[in-house]
């Protein structure tokens, strides 16, 4: 059985600036891959490339056994199988939380409104947002908004979830409630690639941790290894600063 998502030799540059250089990564079903590294190391860009939000400049990305970095691939079909959550929530302010969650299932996947709402409500309920369903996003706290964004991503039954520093904009008190959901999803077997600054969370949840520096994966391994006995000096420096 080949990997769910396979990246090899990925390169991305903006003009002269090389943002990702020769990235190779393999994600199996039920894997939780944590990308760590300082800001500007390419974590977000990598996630955006995986979701085909950016055209890559070299390399291959395969998803479910087929190459998706081919320009002829219908990006919408791939994206509807991959969920993504952003640092700034990016909920649609003109829709209620429930409508935010049912938009893609109804318009992209053609689910009946009643079915979409039933699923959204059960997820909102599970994550403690049942009483917020009818409200508009701006009325919610940051933690609630980010949980709603997670529910929105989960409503489409993605096979892979990409999380881009989803707790970076939250105050520490609210970080826990969001990570709790991510942990629950990880435990129930969701495959995830996430960029994060929460090292203790990465240590507990990740099956594998990648340390990115200047657009390269400098070091990859199980969290126990990366956090207690990193191979690279650069990794050690980074961990000393953040731990």
């Amino acid at each position: 059985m080949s990997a769910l998502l396979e990246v090899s030799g990925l390169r991305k540059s903006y003009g002269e600036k090389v943002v990702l250089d020769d990235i190779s990564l393999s994600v199996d079903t039920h894997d939780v891959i944590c990308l760590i590294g300082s800001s500007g190391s390419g974590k977000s860009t990598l996630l955006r490339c995986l979701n085909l939000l950016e055209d890559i400049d070299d390399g291959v990305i395969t998803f479910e056994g087929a190459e998706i970095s081919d320009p002829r691939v219908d990006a919408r079909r791939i994206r509807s199988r991959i969920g993504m959550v952003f640092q700034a929530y990016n909920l649609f302010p003109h829709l209620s939380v429930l409508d935010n969650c049912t938009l893609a299932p109804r318009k992209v996947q053609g689910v009946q409104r009643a079915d979409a709402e039933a699923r959204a409500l059960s997820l909102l309920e599970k994550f403690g947002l049942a009483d917020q369903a009818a409200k508009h996003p701006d009325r919610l706290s940051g933690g609630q908004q980010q949980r709603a964004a997670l529910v929105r991503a989960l409503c489409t039954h993605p096979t892979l979830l990409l999380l881009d520093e989803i707790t970076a904009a939250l105050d520490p008190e609210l970080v826990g409630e969001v990570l709790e959901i991510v942990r629950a999803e990880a435990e129930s077997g969701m495959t995830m690639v996430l960029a994060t600054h929460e090292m203790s969370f990465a240590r507990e949840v990740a099956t594998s941790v990648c340390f990115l520096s200047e657009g390269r994966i400098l070091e990859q391994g199980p969290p126990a290894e990366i956090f207690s006995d990193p191979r690279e000096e650069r990794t050690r420096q980074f961990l000393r600063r953040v731990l």
Partner: protein
Amino acid sequence: MTGWTPSQHELERRRVRRRLRTRSVLIATAMTIVVFVVLSLVVTGSPGWPQVQALFFSWPDAREALPDIWDAIWLNIKMFLIAEVFILVFGMLIAMARVSRSPWLVPLRIVGVVYTDVIRGIPTLLLVYLLAFGMPALHLQGLPNGAFFWATVALIISYSAYVAEVFRSGIESVHPSQWASAQALGLSRGQTLRHVVIPQAVRRVVPPLLNDFVSLQKDTALASVAGVFEAVFVARDYGNYNFNYTPLVVVACFFIVLTVPLARLTDWLSARYRRRELAGAL
């Protein structure tokens, strides 16, 4: 560059991208040609086309009327340029009055609300009549009596009301967090408006603003009812004498030529702002 050469796979992908791009260009070209050929066939193939062509698209008449129209169109342009400046200023002032929150300015706010409500309800044509014939008839000392002057004033009054609402919608579209963060820095409401909110608001409303100005360009023709000898007046005059309306089409072409550069300029401006502010991000 650190000695990177694209892989075979990447080269192949570039070929595919190029092929896809060529394909979209071809589709675009083909579709454009098909649509315009069909349209022109439908129009020129219609049973009444020869009469319509003779009445509206006659080359000799266009040539004959051109010099007079050319002279008259300057009047439209002058009127438009003068009015535009005042409209921008008054429109902004009215919009600012309407979003003011100071208790001292409540009367101004009320005036702003009543002004936009009432003026937008009055047909511009009626305003032109009222001012161009009514004001001189008042025999007020020190006011000009020219039809050109009062027609321009009528346009300014009318369009200020529309433009004020455009500006106001722009101001209200700026997120409240911008107000909060400016006031947190100690800026007064007025300073916040001037330095933070309005600069963002104006950029957002450039397209609807352009809409109003294009409309204003054409409404300079309303001055003809007050006896101003502007381009549409000249064209209609020609039509009445020669039973040919080609000059009106000529005037329309002039207006189009005036509008297009303005539209391209604003497109270019807003694209530039977007590039500068969103460079690379999201």
